[in-house]
């Protein structure tokens, strides 16, 4: 199987002299970046992994793209992804699956699978993904690279094609923690085009400068609920990584987050509800695709036909379930309860982080699935997101860093560290300790 990392291979030169904004001496001059295909690039197709947007060429750049260009980076292509970010394997892409360079024959994780695979395969130095419920951390863990999901509001979402606005953030991938942090330095910061961004500059010189590996005196909370559902060999690898941090001066204690038992259902109700609203805009009028069928006089039929042809199964599933959850008579039962669960999750994390500097768990409870293994049972796929979705519900930052390989199958295992809001430097410092042997 071909790697199929990119949907569009076009290069966008940041240090091109034709680009006035570019800076040949910028912090990312000479560095290559793969960009997830739901981040708008002016003049370069942005498909979201969907047939619906196969021909769509944005007339403007996302804020993160303008910042990449200004920093002198070279974009090497638009990376494959689960359709509209909906999936954990990159298999729901309308452009075919991506192989995992770190574990051939297995999925790279998702939804930012192409981005993680690009870094793992050396096709790009760095990559941008987006994380609505784990879509950066899951592929980082599966491909053995580093991925950061920033605090909600640290990075502008202007130009990110929306799936679940209240949950998602754009974030960086790198081969090392310092690399990923250096990309975060470029994309982070307030943007008048995204009113949810906050001015939260790093305390130190930069995020990259925080990658010191110093964990002396760091207290790590380990939520027992996030170990319960994980495979034994994943848990073993996780504890080895904790022992490594302990040997460098960190301490750990177990904590309990009872609310996370309800995080997956709360996440899916909220994400699907937001998706049903966000994806209503794809009706074939403003972005294509061309309608083949001429329906006589009823525009609803025309829209329904375009959406039947343009969306894949997982996207239809989420739009329908979201429409249902928001419909009269069910809103209080599903959406309102999910918002209660979200507030509860936030409280639990705040409490646990008042007694620990960071919280640690396996990023994914399993090692990478084999290609094709998991497509038939959507609910089982959703449950694999148990450790990542609580972080999005709580709006907190998290990093996934390689913890080692599973003893059972030799496949990559990721360690997730979660910190307080805008505590990215602490996560970067702690995660980088695993890279210094």
């Amino acid at each position: 199987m071909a790697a199929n990392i990119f949907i569009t291979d076009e290069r966008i030169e940041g240090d091109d002299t034709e680009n006035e904004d570019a800076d040949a001496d910028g912090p990312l001059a000479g560095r290559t970046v793969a960009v997830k295909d739901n981040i708008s690039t002016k003049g370069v197709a942005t498909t979201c992994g969907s047939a619906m947007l196969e021909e769509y060429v944005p007339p403007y750049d996302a804020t993160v793209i303008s910042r990449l260009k200004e920093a002198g980076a070279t974009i090497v292509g638009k990376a494959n992804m689960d359709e509209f970010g909906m999936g954990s394997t990159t298999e729901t892409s309308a452009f075919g699956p991506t192989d995992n360079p770190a574990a051939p024959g297995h999925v790279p994780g998702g939804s930012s699978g192409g981005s993680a695979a690009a870094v793992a395969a050396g096709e790009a130095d760095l990559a941008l993904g987006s994380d609505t419920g784990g879509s950066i951390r899951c592929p980082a863990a599966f491909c053995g690279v580093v991925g950061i999901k920033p605090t909600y509001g640290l990075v502008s979402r202007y130009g990110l094609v929306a799936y679940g606005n209240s949950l998602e953030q754009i974030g960086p991938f790198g081969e090392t923690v310092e690399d990923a942090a250096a990309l975060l330095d470029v994309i982070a910061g307030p943007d008048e085009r995204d009113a949810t961004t906050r001015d939260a500059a790093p305390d130190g010189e930069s995020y990259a400068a925080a990658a010191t590996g110093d964990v002396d005196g760091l207290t790590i909370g380990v939520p027992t609920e996030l170990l319960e559902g994980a495979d034994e060999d994943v848990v073993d690898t996780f504890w080895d990584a904790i022992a490594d941090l302990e040997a460098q001066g960190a301490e750990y204690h177990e904590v309990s987050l009872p609310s996370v038992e309800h995080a997956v259902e709360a996440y899916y109700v909220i994400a699907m509800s937001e998706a049903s609203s966000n994806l209503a805009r794809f009706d074939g009028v403003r972005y294509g695709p061309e309608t083949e069928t001429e329906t006589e006089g009823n525009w609803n039929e025309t829209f329904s036909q375009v959406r039947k042809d343009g969306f894949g199964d997982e996207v239809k599933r989420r739009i329908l379930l979201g429409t249902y959850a928001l419909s009269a008579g069910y809103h209080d039962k599903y959406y309102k309860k999910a918002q209660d669960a979200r507030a509860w999750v936030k409280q639990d994390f705040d409490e646990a982080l008042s007694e620990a500097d960071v919280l640690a768990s396996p990023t994914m409870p399993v090692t990478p699935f084999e290609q094709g293994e998991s497509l038939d049972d959507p609910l089982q796929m959703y449950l694999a997101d148990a450790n990542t979705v609580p972080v999005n519900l709580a709006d907190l930052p998290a990093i996934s860093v390689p913890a080692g390989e599973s003893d059972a199958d030799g496949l990559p295992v990721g360690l997730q560290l979660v910190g307080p809001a805008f505590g990215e430097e602490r996560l970067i410092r702690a995660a980088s300790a695993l890279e210094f042997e």
Partner: protein
Amino acid sequence: MSDDAVNPEAVRHVAELARVDLDDEEVEAFTGQFADILEYFETLDEVPEVEREAALTNVMRPDEERDSLDREEALRNAPETEDGFFKGPNVS
């Protein structure tokens, strides 16, 4: 599509609300999957009522005139346009 009775008619009804045409095989597959997923969502009933303290701040900017996307650019991705407008299907 109440929780104990996810049936094909209910799936078709929601699909109509969402403006997504489904063929028979999709209706059949979704009926089974939605029953499983909604049963799982039922566990939200166990969530206690939670005091939500949203620390929200309004973010305002001055209401000043500024350039926007020009019309040609805005229309470039549309399959059909007419006289500088998007052209949609007929409204009956």
